[in-house]
């Protein structure tokens, strides 16, 4: 049963409640919207470079090694830019047990991390500052760990999608959620 849905250009957020009668599991999904334009652009530019080099080879008599190397280079670039595309990331909140963080890749691979409820001290919304930009991220403060655990490892959803997930996590862990908490700098500075 889908309870709410927010979306923007890149991501869309779906909140599902499995077994609505009991308080069992609460699933929050952040799904990456398929953007064909990026893949198209990458392939097109790779093709362009290859065509250029082949032309050079045919007209200006450059050696076949150049074509070979540029082909390898193209393949590497395509792999780099389109590597490990993420299909969606989910947070499954099980109030009495814990929180499961899942990352689903397009290739079908799923990576799951489970955090028991008593290990979570507090979920926090942080602002991360990098040399070129600034964004919000949702993290968990884990007992006996020096580092914060990022809820969404690969994706950077906007804060309006993070807020309901944060509220749900606060409710599950029983910590008082308030925007007045002074936050520390995030793990990505």
């Amino acid at each position, binding site marked *: 049963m889908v309870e709410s849905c927010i979306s923007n250009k890149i991501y869309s957020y779906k909140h599902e409640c499995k077994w609505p009668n009991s308080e069992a599991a609460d699933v929050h999904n952040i799904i990456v919207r398929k953007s064909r334009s990026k893949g198209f652009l990458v392939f097109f530019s790779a093709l362009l470079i290859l065509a250029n080099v082949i032309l050079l080879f045919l007209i200006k008599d450059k050696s076949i090694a150049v074509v070979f190397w540029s082909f390898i280079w193209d393949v590497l670039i395509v792999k780099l830019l389109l590597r490990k595309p993420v299909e969606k990331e989910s947070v499954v909140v099980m109030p009495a047990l814990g929180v499961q963080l899942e990352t689903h890749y397009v290739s079908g691979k799923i990576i799951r991390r489970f955090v028991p409820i008593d290990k979570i001290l507090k979920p926090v919304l942080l602002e991360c*500052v990098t040399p070129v930009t*600034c964004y919000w991220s949702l993290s968990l403060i884990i007992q006996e760990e020096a580092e914060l655990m990022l809820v969404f490892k690969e994706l950077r959803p906007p804060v309006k999608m993070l*807020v309901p997930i944060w*509220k749900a996590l606060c409710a599950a862990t029983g910590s008082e959620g*308030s925007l*007045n908490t*002074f*936050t520390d700098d995030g793990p990505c*500075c």
Partner: protein
Amino acid sequence: MVSDFFYPNFGGVENHIYLLSQCLIKLGHKVVVLTHAYGNRSGVRYMTGGLKVYYVPWKPFLMQNTLPTFYGTLPIIRTILIREQISLVHGHQAFSTLCHEALMHARTMGYKFTLADVSQAICVSHTSKENTVLRSGLPPEKVYVIPNAVDTAMFKPAAERPSGNEIVIVVISRLVYRKGADLLVEVIPEVCRMYPNVRFIVGGDGPKRVRLEEMREKHSLQDRVEMLGAVPHAQVRSVLISGHIFLNSSLTEAFCIAILEAASCGLLTVSTRVGGVPEVLPDDMIVLAEPDPTDMVQAIKKAISILPMIDPQDMHNRMKKLYDWHDVAKRTEIVYDRALKCSNQSLLERLSRYLACGAWAGKLFCLVMIIDFLLWRLLQLWKPAEDIEVVPDIVLSHDEDRGISQDFQAFNKDHSLR
């Protein structure tokens, strides 16, 4: 507020930015400070009163200044200006590269701001204004003088003056060339020789400390000259109230908050007549001298003779009336209002102004600004302003019992479900 110099560094500029920001927050404005990262301190921090500070992870490369890459800071500054919904950019300290870059980018993006190409500039003393107008070619009507102030609540004189026959002269400053540490090396032994009942307390650290230690050894003044090392700002007052006279030997100074702090604590000041120092204190609270050892010794002599006529509490009360950060904030607000009223100059108009700067310099400035403009447009296409989320205004609550729903009202208003 943009500057390379902010907490955890301590100094006049840092204090000025912090206190001015606090007073502006009390007047109801939203203030965000932008500076570079200090060691591990990087990211977003909050200070008293909800003052938000962005420590951008750019490494400082020379004397606490970030590397001037010209366009490198454009993306992060644009992001911060949009997400915090800034309407005015105030750059601090003419030597800060981050400040200049931020002002340049803000100008390109059409923001109004204060500090050649600024809407308004603020100087801390009339001497400083003269200097600025002469060197930058800014019209004098655009330059305002708002002096710094001192926190008179913190700097109070001692309940009882240090008694006894001894006269204690206090020096607190960074022991660097600019602050006249070399003058001290000449002056201290001479004064100690002339007045057997005078003692010195020297607080502060720096490259010239070694010279002072050597001077102490050479003239065997270990019991007459006490070296305290670096004094944290919170303890400056307790050091000041242990003395009768404050000695400032700076070679250049736009304003000098240190002598304000000393006067607020009821000390008579002896200082070099440089920069904006003569404008700071009334004539009966300060004895001025040329930055020359003999002249300074004469000035100290005069100060010792008028010392019995000084009443510390009276001095403090006068300082309270003369200098107040709330007053500074109100005057700054007036300058902000004038800046915001200034009409927006289009790119072409500004370019024509730059060309007039000089034969080569003018064309160079034009080129720099055109590239900045193009880069900004490119950024607007790549990361449109609508995609940058606005940060909700955080309201400080003293009552922690409020539920989650109330705190999110501000949030939910801005981010309704699409």
